């Protein structure tokens, strides 16, 4: 059998972001691969230390636009922990609403891109059209379709007026049927089954070893969701089940995502029903003392961790991340081993890799 090494870039991988792989082939099967990261390295660790805590809210929102709300909300949670600020209850619910809206849009984008990767153009367009309901809702409520600008230190800076809340409820109603349909389609459609079932399998043991998180872990039967394991914000008052699958293949990962998107609809509805009246923010310009804190949240791609150290000035002394895609990348080696070259784009996209988050 011939061994050869090929390089694959964003155009071959059907990725939106520049990511390069060096793939070692035996015949037409993948034997090994190396990820060549760094294309999207913008020096974030350096930048956050040169921006004050307020500027960092906006900067971190642009760390990655697909999980854009998770970054500032987790950062603000860390700052609030250092300063001992308890955010108002209304703000907790509004943060959950923003997070869940982003989760639905992010999961749908991932499913759409995978449909595109296997040449299912009609399905790709259909999923993107469904996602538009969320994009419209984001723009109508927050004023931007990607970066919501929902968070400030001490709470949120947007409000849901009764009109906005009923508009959002209506959008959620519109999402239900298409999401149920997509769940059935990704689960049972023979064409999609043929391409996605038993493809890119990550066995449970390997998943534990790679410490994967998010939908990639939950598709292997690992019951781990930060919203349940260590509830933050309003999540201890919201009712939902952790979406689980056991097969660990591409299909299972998408089933987890679509089940979660459907749950997010329910979570948003619960937030709207329970939304208490009250202030949006604890304090406009709170004093941030010296200290350190860790905050974590369940971003669309999995557990997101922030470490923050402050010295009493309004510049952070240190800010470190652990982003979900970092561990999930590593698992690609296991998923791709023995797979034909033609399956590489699909499998790579099935972990929903966020290069912007990981390269930083």
């Amino acid at each position: 059998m011939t061994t050869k090494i090929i390089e694959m870039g964003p155009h071959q991988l059907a990725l939106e972001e520049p990511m390069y792989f060096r793939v070692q082939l035996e015949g037409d099967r993948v034997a090994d691969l190396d990820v060549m990261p760094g294309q999207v390295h913008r020096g974030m660790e350096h930048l956050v230390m040169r921006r004050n805590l307020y500027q960092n809210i906006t900067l971190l929102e642009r760390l990655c636009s697909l999980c854009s709300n998770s970054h500032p909300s987790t950062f603000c949670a860390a700052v609030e922990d250092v300063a001992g600020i308890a955010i108002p209850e209304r703000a907790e619910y509004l943060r959950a609403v923003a997070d869940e809206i982003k989760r639905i849009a992010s999961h749908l984008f991932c499913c759409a891109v995978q449909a595109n990767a296997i040449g299912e153009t009609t399905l790709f367009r259909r999923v993107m059209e469904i996602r538009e309901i969320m994009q419209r809702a984001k723009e109508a409520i927050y004023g931007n379709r990607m970066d919501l600008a929902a968070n400030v230190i001490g709470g949120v800076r947007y409000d849901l007026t009764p009109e906005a809340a009923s508009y959002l409820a209506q959008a959620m109603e519109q999402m239900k049927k298409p999401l149920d349909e997509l769940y059935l389609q990704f689960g049972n459609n023979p064409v999609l089954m043929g391409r996605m079932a038993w493809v890119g399998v990550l066995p449970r043991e390997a998943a534990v070893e790679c410490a994967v998180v998010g939908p990639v872990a939950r598709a292997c039967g690992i019951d781990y969701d930060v919203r349940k394991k260590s509830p933050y914000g309003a999540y201890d008052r919201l009712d939902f089940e952790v979406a689980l699958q056991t097969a660990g293949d591409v299909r299972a990962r998408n089933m987890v995502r679509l089940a979660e998107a459907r749950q997010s609809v329910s979570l948003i509805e619960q937030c709207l029903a329970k939304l208490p009246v009250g202030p949006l923010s604890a304090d406009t310009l709170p004093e941030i003392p010296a200290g350190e804190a860790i905050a974590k949240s369940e971003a669309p791609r999995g557990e997101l961790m922030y470490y923050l150290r402050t010295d009493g000035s309004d510049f952070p002394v240190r800010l470190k991340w652990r982003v979900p895609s970092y561990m999930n990348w590593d698992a690609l080696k296991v998923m791709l081993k023995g797979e034909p070259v033609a399956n590489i784009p699909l499998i790579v996209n099935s972990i929903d890799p966020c290069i912007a988050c990981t390269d930083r």
Partner: protein
Amino acid sequence: MAIQEQETAAEPVRLFRINTGSCNGCDVELAVTSAVTEFDVEQLGCRYTESAHEADIVLITGPLTVRARDEVLRLYAATPRDRITVAVGVCPVSGGVFRDSYAVDGPLERHLPVDVNIPGCPPRPLALLAGIRQALEVRRARRAGEPIREPGDRKQPAADNFPARGRLSFDASACVDCRMCRHVCAAGAIRFEEGEGGVRLTLWHNSCVFCGLCSHYCPTGALSVTGDWRLDHPAADAFRQVERGEVPYQPCAGCGEPIIPAAPQLLHAVFRRPNPEIEKLKNLCPACRQRMSIGVPRR
């Protein structure tokens, strides 16, 4: 008998995308213009291509990272010489929030010629389409050897009533020169200059990321977010895309020292109903204010 049908449809204009290390916001929105009927570039007679050598219009996103630079320049060199280059989002133009990083080698114009800018963070799909339309006009004009036609009506379609976060607007009469806006601006888009007659604020739309944090923290509402998102422009006009205003100095009613008096908006925010006593104080410099209220200036 088969009739050879004459080719009447015009060849589509081919769009080629290069990501130079973006946060993926612009790229996801560009994907929307290839997937969602309402925003499809086909309505402009365009189509996306995956090969650089077919590019009629090159759409570039991201602040150009050091690591991506060589690959970007290699790809760009593979595009035809008569391509039109569009900078999508503010990152390629100014670096946006990523400016001043060791890992960023922008602005893009240092490395290759840019024809059209589409500010936004990210630009909404309609703004992308407007920018691509502008690029098509540059292409047409260049091919015909004519000057570029000014886009006639820059007004937004009436049906579009989304309160999108667009261009910031500055009301100098409400500004009290506290400079909180500059303090919270992650992109460094706001500049204050002290001149002879007053303090001047300049806000550059090609650096602004439209997060609205300046307006959130502005105590008097001097800065406000407008819904105007039509900001695409020829790259040559990049530095004319500014919001400006001058807050004039006024002589202190006591000593004549030039001061920025407190705007009525600030007095209302602080006192709700300012009394004549307070109204009198607002025209005094800090030293005269102290003299008037406690008799002597504090040391």
